[in-house]
C-alpha cells in the first residue's frame, strides 16, 4: 500500500507512471462526482469528514509515543504529504488555465496593456517548451554551425538564469529604494512615538557601524569591575540592549498572540466548528 503511493520515475517505469496519473484523475473526478451528486445537506458532512481525517493523522502522529524520533505513523508522513501535493497539483492546472484565458482574451481584443499579456503568453509557452525539452532531451542540439552549438539545455538556462533569475534580482534590489522612502516617512518627527522610533533607529544604526562605535569608544570596555558600569553606555551596548531587552520581548509577545490565533483557527477548521464552512456560506 505504502509503495503504491511512492513517486515513480517516468524513465524507469513509464507505464506505471501514466497508469498512476490516470488513476489519480479517475479518483479526483470520482470524488467530485460524489460531491456533485450528494444532496446539499450531506455535502458539508462529507467535506467535514475528509477534513477531520486529514487533521487527525497529524494529531495522532504527534501524540502517539515515539522512540528515537518516530512512532508507528511517522513512516507514512511522506506518503500523506505526497497525497496533499497531488491534490494541490490539480489546482495548478486550473490556475494556469485561468491565467492564459485572461491574457489571451486581452491579446485577441487588443485591450489596453495587451502587449504585456502577449509577453506573458509568449514567455509562458517558451518556458514550458524548453522546460520540458530540458527535462527529456537536454543534450539535443538546436542550432549548429558557424561556431555555434546550442542545446535545449542552453536555451532553458538562458531563459531561466538569464531571464527569470535576473528579473527577480532586479525587483528584489528595488526594495532598497522602497525602504529608504518608507523609512523617511516613518522617521519624520511628528509625535512622541515617531520621535522614540527615530531615536531607537538612530542608536541601532550607529551601533551597527564602525563610525557609531567610534563615538563612544572612549568609554571603558567593561573588562574592569570598577568601571564596568560605564560600559553600558557604549553605543553598541545600548543598541544590543534595545534589540534584546526591548525589541525581542515585544516580538515574542506578538508571537504568543499570533500562535494562539493560528491554533484557534486550525481547531475551528479541523473540527468544522465554523457554522456554514467557506466563510459563512453554505456548501
Amino acid at each position: 500500500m505504502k509503495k503504491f503511493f511512492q513517486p515513480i520515475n517516468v524513465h524507469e517505469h513509464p507505464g506505471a507512471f501514466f497508469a498512476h496519473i490516470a488513476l489519480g484523475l479517475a479518483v479526483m473526478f470520482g470524488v467530485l462526482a460524489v460531491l456533485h451528486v450528494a444532496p446539499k445537506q450531506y455535502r458539508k458532512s462529507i467535506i467535514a469528514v475528509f477534513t477531520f481525517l486529514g487533521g487527525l493523522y497529524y494529531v495522532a502522529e504527534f501524540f502517539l509515543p515515539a522512540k528515537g524520533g518516530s512512532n508507528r505513523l511517522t513512516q507514512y508522513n511522506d506518503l500523506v504529504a505526497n497525497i496533499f501535493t497531488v491534490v494541490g497539483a490539480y489546482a495548478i492546472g486550473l490556475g494556469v488555465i485561468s491565467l492564459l484565458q485572461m491574457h489571451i482574451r486581452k491579446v485577441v481584443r487588443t485591450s489596453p496593456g495587451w502587449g504585456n499579456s502577449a509577453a506573458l503568453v509568449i514567455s509562458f509557452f517558451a518556458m514550458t517548451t524548453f522546460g520540458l525539452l530540458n527535462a527529456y532531451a537536454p543534450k539535443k542540439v538546436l542550432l549548429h554551425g558557424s561556431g555555434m552549438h546550442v542545446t535545449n539545455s542552453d536555451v532553458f538556462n538562458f531563459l531561466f538564469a538569464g531571464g527569470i533569475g535576473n528579473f527577480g534580482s532586479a525587483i528584489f534590489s528595488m526594495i532598497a529604494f522602497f525602504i529608504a522612502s518608507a523609512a523617511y516617512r516613518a522617521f519624520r518627527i511628528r509625535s512622541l512615538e515617531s520621535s522614540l522610533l527615530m531615536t531607537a533607529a538612530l542608536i541601532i544604526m550607529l551601533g551597527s557601524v564602525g563610525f557609531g562605535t567610534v563615538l563612544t569608544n572612549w568609554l571603558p570596555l567593561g573588562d574592569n569591575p570598577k568601571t564596568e558600569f560605564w560600559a553600558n553606555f557604549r553605543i553598541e551596548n545600548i543598541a544590543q540592549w534595545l534589540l534584546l531587552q526591548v525589541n525581542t520581548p515585544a516580538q515574542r509577545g506578538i508571537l504568543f498572540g499570533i500562535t494562539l490565533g493560528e491554533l484557534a483557527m486550525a481547531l475551528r477548521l479541523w473540527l468544522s466548528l465554523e457554522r456554514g464552512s467557506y466563510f459563512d456560506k453554505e456548501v
Partner: protein
Amino acid sequence: MLHANDNWHVSGLVVLISFIIVLNVIIAQQGKVPTIRRIPGLNAIDEAIGRATEMGRPALMIPGITGLDVGTLAGLSILGHIARSIARFGNKVILLSADPIVTGVAEETVRDAYADAGRQDLYTDDDVRYLTSEQFAFAAGAAGIINREKPGAAFLFGNFFAESLIFAETGQQIGAIQIAGTPQTEQIPFFLAACDYVIIGEEYYAASAYITRNPTYLGSIVGQDISKLILITMVLIGVVVASIDQYAGAHGLHHLSINLHKYYLDLLKT
C-alpha cells in the same frame, strides 16, 4: 520529528488550550456571545471603501503569497467580508493571487460576496487574477497593476515576506488608503511605515470575529484570551523564579536555588 513525548508539559499545555478554545466556541454557539474591544484598523475599512468608490477607483486585495494555509485562510475570510462591503457600495474588486489553489477559493469568495450584495452583474472573471507563484515576479506584476489601475483602497491581508514593502510603497505612491495585516511579524514594521492602518498580532485572527460578530469566532477569541492569561501567568512565575534563582546563586544561598527556572524554560521552549 517532534513528538508529544519529547516534552509532555508543552503537549499538555496545547491540549489544555485547545480544550479551552473549543469549549468557549461551543458556549458562544449556544447563545452566550461576548463583546470584543475596538480595532481601529478594521473600523477604517468602510471609510477606505467609501473613499475608493467616491474617487471612482477599484479596491485592491492581496491575500498574501503563500498557499492555502491558516494565515491565508484567515486573510481570505477578512477579504471576503471586505468584498461584500465593496459590492454593496457598487464598486469593483481586483484580487491578486500568487497561488492557484488560493485563486480558486478567492474566486468563489468574491463571487459569493457580490451575490450576497445582489450585485452579481458587477463580477467578472478578471476580478480575481492569478499572476504567478514566483515571489518577485508576483511583486513586479502586482506593482504594475497597482500603477496602471490606480486602486483607491488596498487591503493586504495574508502571509507576506520580502515583497511586502513593494506592494505597500507602490500603493502609497499612488495615494491609495491602505489597510494591512499579517501573521509574519518581521513584515509588520514595513507595513507600519507604508500603510495607513495595520492590524498587529492576534488582531489578525480576531478580525473576522470583529467584522462579522459571528458567535463561533467570538467564542474562539474568548478562548484565546483565557489561554493568553494562562501563558502570561506562566511567564510571570518564570520571571520570579529565575530572579530568585539568580539572586540565590549570586549571594551563595544555594538552598534557595531550586532550579525551577530551568523547568519553566523547558516548558516554554517550544
